[in-house]
């Protein structure tokens, strides 16, 4: 199903037909439509689709270890996908996962070998209903988006080898759950030309109700030397960050809330000279910040940089220690 049929990456959703009513023209779908489509059209892609493919327990080493495109029901478990970045020569080195509906990656290692680490795009182009569970990543960045939906990342081990640009872990799409993962930076995250963010949700374009939950994920060994580094950035509408442990040194910000109706609850944030939690949501203000434990040596524990609108901010039950000023309201 497409919002429109031209351009490169389009808002779309795949599903399977489980019922056909020729009299009414109604098609029943295996996966309900979750996005708004103002001018929807439908294509029958059956003749192109690959389905029910699996790869288990092998080591795959080469320029691009794995590419899966336009497939229903793909699973990969207990493999090592090793991008040989010593090859060069214009070779694409990332995994290539596009338009995959219903997939599972479990217990795999995804890394580079024989050369520098690389960015990994985990699932793009309308990939939906996916699970990443118990995988180990050794990359400069990992992330997904492009109208992704219903993606769960649980109990993964993410070792980031930052190159000073971009987002360490970018989570984009609708109904994303990032739970129980541990995220490490290997070496120093120095920011530079990128956002300098360790973990961020990036709301997918044209989505009306993106939702994301980041919970119970220990985010550790985060080193920073520049102020603009942010451990956890919430840019999606209604994002939830709950039960995480964020440990950072240097001048990093712990959590930065940039869009409305975020819930930042029950996190433990131990940072150096930076700000614990910053709220700056200039367009639509409202957030709930409760039950967090913040400690650091910087100027501000909670920094409120914008005035709340309807609903306001709800901030209570936070334990803030060590900062020069536990909370400051300084709207711009």
């Amino acid at each position: 199903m497409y919002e429109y049929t031209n351009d490169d990456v389009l808002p779309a959703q795949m599903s399977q037909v489980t019922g056909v009513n020729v009299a009414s023209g109604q098609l029943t779908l295996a996966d309900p439509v979750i996005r708004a489509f103002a001018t929807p059209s439908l294509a029958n892609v059956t003749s192109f689709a690959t389905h029910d493919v699996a790869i288990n327990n092998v080591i795959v080493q080469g320029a691009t270890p794995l590419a899966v495109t336009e497939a229903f029901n793909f699973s990969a478990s207990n493999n090592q996908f090793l991008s040989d970045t010593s090859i060069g020569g214009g070779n694409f080195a990332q995994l290539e996962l596009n338009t995959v509906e219903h997939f599972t990656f479990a217990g795999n290692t995804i890394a580079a070998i024989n050369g520098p680490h690389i960015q990994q795009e985990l699932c793009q182009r309308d990939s939906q209903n996916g699970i990443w569970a118990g995988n180990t990543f050794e990359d400069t960045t990992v992330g997904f988006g492009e109208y992704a939906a219903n993606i769960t990342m649980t109990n993964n081990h993410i070792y980031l080898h930052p190159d000073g640009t971009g987002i360490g872990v970018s989570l984009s799409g609708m109904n994303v759950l990032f739970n129980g993962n541990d995220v490490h930076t290997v070496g120093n995250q120095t920011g530079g030309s990128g956002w300098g963010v360790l973990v961020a949700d990036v709301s997918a374009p044209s989505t009306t109700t993106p939702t994301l939950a980041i919970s119970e994920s220990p985010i550790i060994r985060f080193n920073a030397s520049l102020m603009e580094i942010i451990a956890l950035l919430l840019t999606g509408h209604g994002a939830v960050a709950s039960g995480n442990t964020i440990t950072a040194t240097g001048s990093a910000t712990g959590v930065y809330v940039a869009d409305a109706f975020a819930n930042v609850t029950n996190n433990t944030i131990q940072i150096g000279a930076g700000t614990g939690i910053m709220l700056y949501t200039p367009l639509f203000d409202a957030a709930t910040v409760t039950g967090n434990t913040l400690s650091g040596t910087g100027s501000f524990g909670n920094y409120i940089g914008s005035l709340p609108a309807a609903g306001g901010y709800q901030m209570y039950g936070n334990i803030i220690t060590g900062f020069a000023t536990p909370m400051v309201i300084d709207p711009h």
Partner: protein
Amino acid sequence: MKRVPRVILVRLVSFSIVVCFHAASVFAAITIGVASYGEKCNGVTDDRSAIQNALNAAYAAGGGTVTLPGSTCLLNSFAPSSHPWIFYNRHIPSNVTLQGTAGPKRLQGPNGRQLIGNIPGASYIENTVVAGGNDFASIHYRNVGVFYSLNASTVGGPSVTLSAAAQAANFAVATTSRCTSTRMMTYYRPR
């Protein structure tokens, strides 16, 4: 979904057994050892064709598992995709599982890659070791040639309605299966 376990034994070229539980009689399942197709997996001989032939045989049998030995299989040649810049060593077709044992490595050899210099105008090149899905051309789904308009007010739940009801006849109902694998799989029946 209620599953009806049944055991299907199919002999093709080799000679193991896979148990396939399924609710609809959608495909048989076989297990193929790639040695049956002449693979060496000694780290020297090019095993690409042998492994691909085994994968293709599993697909031709209606689905199954191709097993790999616990040694290094060299993939030292490549095949084209429909994209002029993109090549691959192995392609896993529908209903096929590539199953390794402990420690087997699929190693892309120096001749297992196309060179960008051989492709006029290419700004990059993609040499994929294992490919699943529709041979990398990620816009195939949009090249079906026919798009059917939907009644927008019906979009947003478990069903959609075509603007022209009779066009529903162009769609078929998928069936469902489950083989011995890591998860429930929904079979997508080719038309």
